[in-house]
């Protein structure tokens, strides 16, 4: 107990710094996945992508990140075992952050794709199961989280398949694809705006102290979605087309319309990413703050400290601003044959899936969901070629991340424990 009393503020500051670094790493790392498709299909320039990512990652983190943070903070570990030794939980959460942060750094340096979610969950399970005892982990929720890593890419894939097929039926396979695109693309914008705002309103806002009734929530969401669609329509109407009888030129014009949609799905993707992944950095920090703040009492129901979500949001944005453009520039070099019309379905499906998952408080892997969505579009014959070898590498690195994150966090846990006790 006296450890927390004597070193409480030191521990909080330390946790805050490590959490901030971790958020930074998430911003620098995952921006490529969240914004890559938009930059790759040339719907956005690198500069625009960074600006959009900054605004929407922060908004997602701040407005919709609370639910997942709670899960990371108290859903993985059965905290009743720590009632007598809260300092162990504090040390553990700090080691988990250190471990995940270290692993992210190493992986970024080596150019391996890793999932921030996997590394933090692995790290928390690791220190708790090995450092303290197998019984301290809430294996039921861990099973649920791991299950969601398999299910969410599937859901995103099915979504993407359906969205792409509908776009084919409504837009490409018509007499005048351009006119159809102008007519139907705002509907997709509406869909994106509706799902994102609904989940935010219903699940996210209560963490910043706003409570909105369910009917009101739907009305607000519809209002936002209509707003998004109108803005999109306005930009589409401002596009300049070279009218021509040639079908090929017609397709180029259709792509222009989809590029506007792609901007909106990119915003959605950044928002979704912020809402889910910010928790990986600040969940453990929130746990430390709440334990220290309550003098060692592990409260199951304590509100997030007001400064935690913004700290994570700012961390992500800082990582984006300083390293994001380098990451995205590298993507720009590996130009793909991805066009807006083929990329939007994947992005829209992934963004919706991630935001819905964030609303239920599941920490899922954003990258994984996006890969699932891309495969879905591929199944719908919408992508020229998918490199299954790369998909396999990505999957392998996800699997490897779990034991590595666990191992590192056990090591740090014993180090910190040795230093203080």
């Amino acid at each position, binding site marked *: 107990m006296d450890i927390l009393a004597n070193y409480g503020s030191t521990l909080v500051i330390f946790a805050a710094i490590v959490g901030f670094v971790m958020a930074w790493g998430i911003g620098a790392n995952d921006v490529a996945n969240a914004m890559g498709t938009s930059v790759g299909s040339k719907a956005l320039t690198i500069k625009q992508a960074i600006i959009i990512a900054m605004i929407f990652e922060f908004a997602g983190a701040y407005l919709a990140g609370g639910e997942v943070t709670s899960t990371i903070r108290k859903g993985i570990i059965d905290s009743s075992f720590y009632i007598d030794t809260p300092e162990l939980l504090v040390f553990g959460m700090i080691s988990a952050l250190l471990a995940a942060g270290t692993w992210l750094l190493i992986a970024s340096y080596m150019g391996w794709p890793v999932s921030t979610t996997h590394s933090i969950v692995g790290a928390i399970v690791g220190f708790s199961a090995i450092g303290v005892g197998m019984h301290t982990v809430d294996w039921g929720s861990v099973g649920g989280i791991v299950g969601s890593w398999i299910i969410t890419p599937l859901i995103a894939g099915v979504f993407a398949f359906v969205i792409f097929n509908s776009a*084919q039926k409504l837009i490409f396979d018509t007499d005048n694809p351009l006119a159809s695109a102008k007519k139907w693309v705002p509907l997709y914008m509406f869909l994106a705006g509706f799902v994102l705002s609904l989940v935010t309103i219903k699940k996210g806002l209560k963490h910043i102290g706003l409570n909105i009734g369910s009917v009101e929530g739907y009305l607000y969401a519809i209002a936002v979605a209509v707003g998004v669609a109108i803005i999109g329509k306005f930009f589409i109407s401002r596009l300049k087309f070279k009218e021509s009888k040639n079908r090929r030129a017609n397709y180029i014009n259709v792509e222009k319309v989809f590029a506007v949609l792609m901007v909106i799905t990119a915003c959605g993707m950044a928002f979704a990413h912020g809402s889910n992944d910010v928790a990986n950095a600040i969940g453990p920090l929130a746990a430390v703050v709440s334990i220290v703040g309550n003098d060692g009492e592990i409260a199951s129901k304590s509100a997030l400290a007001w400064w935690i979500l913004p700290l994570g949001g700012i961390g992500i944005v800082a990582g984006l601003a300083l390293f994001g453009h380098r990451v995205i520039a590298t993507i720009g070099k590996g130009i793909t044959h991805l066009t807006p019309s083929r990329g939007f379905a994947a992005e829209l499906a992934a963004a919706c899936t991630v935001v819905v998952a964030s609303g239920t408080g599941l920490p899922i892997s954003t990258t994984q969901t996006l890969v699932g969505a891309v495969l879905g579009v591929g199944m719908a014959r919408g992508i020229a070629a998918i490199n*299954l070898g790369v998909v396999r590498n990505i999957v392998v690195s996800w699997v490897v991340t779990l034991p590595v994150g666990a191992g590192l966090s056990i090591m740090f846990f014993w180090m910190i424990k040795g230093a203080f006790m």
Partner: protein
Amino acid sequence: MSGNTILGVFAKSPLKPLEQHIRKVNECADLLPSFFVACTAGDWDKAEKIRKDISSLEKAADKMKRDIRNELPGGIFMPVQRTDVLELVSQQDKIANKAKDISGRILGRQLVIPAELSDDFNSYLTRCIDAIKQAADAINELDDLLETGFRGREVKLVEKMIIELASIEDDTDYMQIKLRRALMALEENMNPIDVMFLYQIIEWVGDLADLAERVGARLEIMLAR
């Protein structure tokens, strides 16, 4: 880097290079009429030069073919069967090879198309090259086909193009029969070995249209799945 991002998942599309390849093949075959004009005029130096161009275009097409094969490693997931892509590129490449063979054979023997046949022969050659152009146009729709996910209107349009290609090939068959008959009437007073080779050239030129039609057939199979 590609390993670190989602974009590594998108492999290079094999369809664009297929289009570029058939354009190159088409360019190569397109030199044949001017080659025959030079031969008929007895300008063997010029014919030699055109033959060199044909040969270098054929080499370029060959290189493209190899690149397509190499860039299509295992584990690529495509909306079309990889075997279809590989078959199609082989089929396309044969057209360029045939064009090179024709020009090589003519130049090697300094073979001149008899004046009585020359009009018929030229229109026959032109029609065979039309078939190649038609095949190239059909292949060039691949990108738009992908855009629509290989169904609906775009597929119908390509099918129409392939039917048109078949009818061009039919034309060349009739023209070939006519040419053979005309040559038979002239056989008496010609060098027998030249006659043998002329028959062969007529056949080879016809093969250009046959091969082009096979490209169309391959494309049809690709769409049928």
